[in-house]
C-alpha cells in the first residue's frame, strides 16, 4: 500500500460525488428530514423519540454507505475501471482504504448535520456525549461500507445491488433491538440477532443515549463492530481479483 495512492483514490471518490450534487443533497438532507419526521411522530411520547432518536442517528450513515458503496463498487466492476486499476500498481488495500476515507468524511458531515439538528433544534438529549454519537455514526458508516463492498461482489447488475439493501440491511434493523427489545424476542430470533453486526452497533448507541453508565458491554459492542468491519473489508479485498476467468 502507498499513502499517495490511497489518498488519490479518496480524492477521486469525493470528486465523483462533487459532480453529483443531487446525491450529496440526498445523502445529507434525507436523514435530517427523517429525524424531523420521527420527532413529529412522537410529539405526544417524547420518551420514545429520546430512546430511538440517538440510535437512528448512528444508523442513517450505515444504511446510506451500504447502498452507495455497493453501487459504486459494482460500477467499477462492470465498467472495466476495476480491471484497469488492478493492472496498475494500485494495491487492493489502497482502493479499499481510499473508499473508506472518502465515505467516512461524507458520513462525518452527515452525522454532524443530523446531530446538530437533533441535539440543537429537536431537543434530543445526547446522553453521554454528542461527540461519541458522531464518532459511532462514522464507525457505523465504515461498517456499512465494508458490508456493501462485500455484497457488491455478489451482484451482477445494479438492480441486484439495490435489492441487497432490503436483503442485508432490513433484517438487521428489524432484529437489532430498535423495534422490539432483544430480551422480549423469541429465543431463536435473539440467537439470530446475536450474530448480526448491527445488533452491536445499535446496542452501543442505545447505551450512549441512556442516562445509566454505558457498562462493559459497550466496549464489547465496539470491539465486535470494528472486528466485523475489518473482516468484511478483508473479505471484500479477497473479491477484488487481479486475475479473473
Amino acid at each position, binding site marked *: 500500500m502507498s499513502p499517495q495512492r490511497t489518498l488519490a483514490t479518496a480524492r*477521486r471518490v469525493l470528486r465523483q460525488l462533487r459532480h453529483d450534487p443531487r446525491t450529496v443533497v440526498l445523502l445529507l438532507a434525507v436523514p435530517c428530514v427523517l429525524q424531523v419526521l420521527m420527532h413529529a411522530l412522537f410529539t405526544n411520547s417524547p420518551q420514545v423519540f429520546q430512546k430511538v432518536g440517538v440510535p437512528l442517528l448512528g444508523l442513517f450513515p450505515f444504511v446510506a454507505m451500504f447502498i452507495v458503496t455497493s453501487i459504486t463498487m459494482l460500477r467499477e466492476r462492470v465498467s472495466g475501471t476495476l480491471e*484497469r486499476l488492478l493492472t*496498475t*500498481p494500485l494495491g487492493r488495500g489502497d482502493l479499499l482504504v481510499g473508499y473508506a476515507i472518502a465515505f467516512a468524511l461524507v458520513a462525518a458531515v452527515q452525522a454532524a448535520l443530523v446531530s446538530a439538528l437533533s441535539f440543537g433544534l429537536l431537543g434530543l438529549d445526547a446522553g453521554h456525549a454528542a461527540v461519541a454519537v458522531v464518532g459511532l455514526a462514522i464507525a457505523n458508516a465504515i461498517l456499512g461500507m465494508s458490508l456493501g463492498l462485500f455484497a457488491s461482489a455478489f451482484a451482477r447488475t445494479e438492480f441486484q445491488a439495490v435489492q441487497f439493501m432490503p436483503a442485508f440491511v432490513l433484517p438487521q434493523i428489524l432484529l437489532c433491538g430498535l423495534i422490539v427489545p432483544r430480551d422480549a424476542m423469541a429465543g431463536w430470533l435473539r440467537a439470530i440477532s446475536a450474530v448480526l453486526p448491527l445488533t452491536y452497533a445499535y446496542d452501543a448507541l442505545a447505551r450512549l443515549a441512556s442516562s445509566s453508565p454505558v457498562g462493559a458491554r459497550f466496549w464489547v459492542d465496539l470491539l465486535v463492530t470494528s472486528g466485523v468491519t475489518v473482516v468484511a473489508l478483508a473479505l471484500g479485498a479477497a473479491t477484488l481479483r487481479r486475475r479473473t476467468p
Partner: protein
Amino acid sequence: MSTAISVRALVVVRGGREVLHGIDLDVESGSVTGLLGPSGSGKTTLLRSVVGAQIVASGSVEVLGLPAGTPELRSRVGYQTQAPSVYPDLTIVENLDYFSRILDVGQSSVGETVDLVALGGLEGQLAATLSGGELARLSLAAALLNRPELVVLDEPTVGLDPVLRQGLWQTFHELAEQGTTLLVSSHVMDEASRCDVLALLRDGRLLATGTPAELLERTGSSDLDAAFLALVEEGSSE
C-alpha cells in the same frame, strides 16, 4: 531486436469452453504488432493474458522478460480495455490526474498526454458528455500516461473517424520509434496495413504471423482481406 512478449502453447478456458487452443506468439520490442481477427476470435482473451488479468489453463506468457502479471510489470505495461474504462462522472483532467497519481508520474504528463491523443481544449469536460471517439481517446490516454515500455490496446480505434484514426496510428508509430512496443487489436482489416507485424487470429488459433508484405506475398493476394480469406481456406484444408 529483443522480444517484448513471448507466448508459448497458451490455452485459456472461459465458461467451460476452450477459447485459446495453444497460441505461440513473439512480439518484438519497438514494433507495432496488430492482432487481427473477427469478433469472438479470442483477441481480448489473448490481450488479457498478456497483461496478467486472465486466468490461463496452461502454457506460458512472458512479458519484458518476466511472467505476465508479475507485480513489477504493473508500472511497465499500459492496458486499454475494449470498453472505455474511465470514470464518466469525472472530467478528462480529473480522470487523468487520478491515473497519473496511481502510476506515480508527474502532473506534467497529464497535459502532454492530452495533447498526444488530441483532446486539447476539452480538459474540463465530464467524460460522460464526450463522444464515443473522445471517450476512447481518453481511455487510451490513461494507458499512456507513464509512457510504459509495452502498451496493450484492445480495439483503440473503434468509432473514430478516418482522420483521427490516421492520427492515432501516427502516434503509435512515433511511440514505437521511441522504443515503446505496441500490441494493438482490431477487427478492421484496413488497419492491418498500418502495422509493422500482423498476427491473424481466428477461433482461438493463430492463422499466420508476418509483415503485411510477407502475408500478401505468401498468399499471392492483392489486399489483406483477401489474404486473410486465403489463410482461412489454407487452414481448413489442412
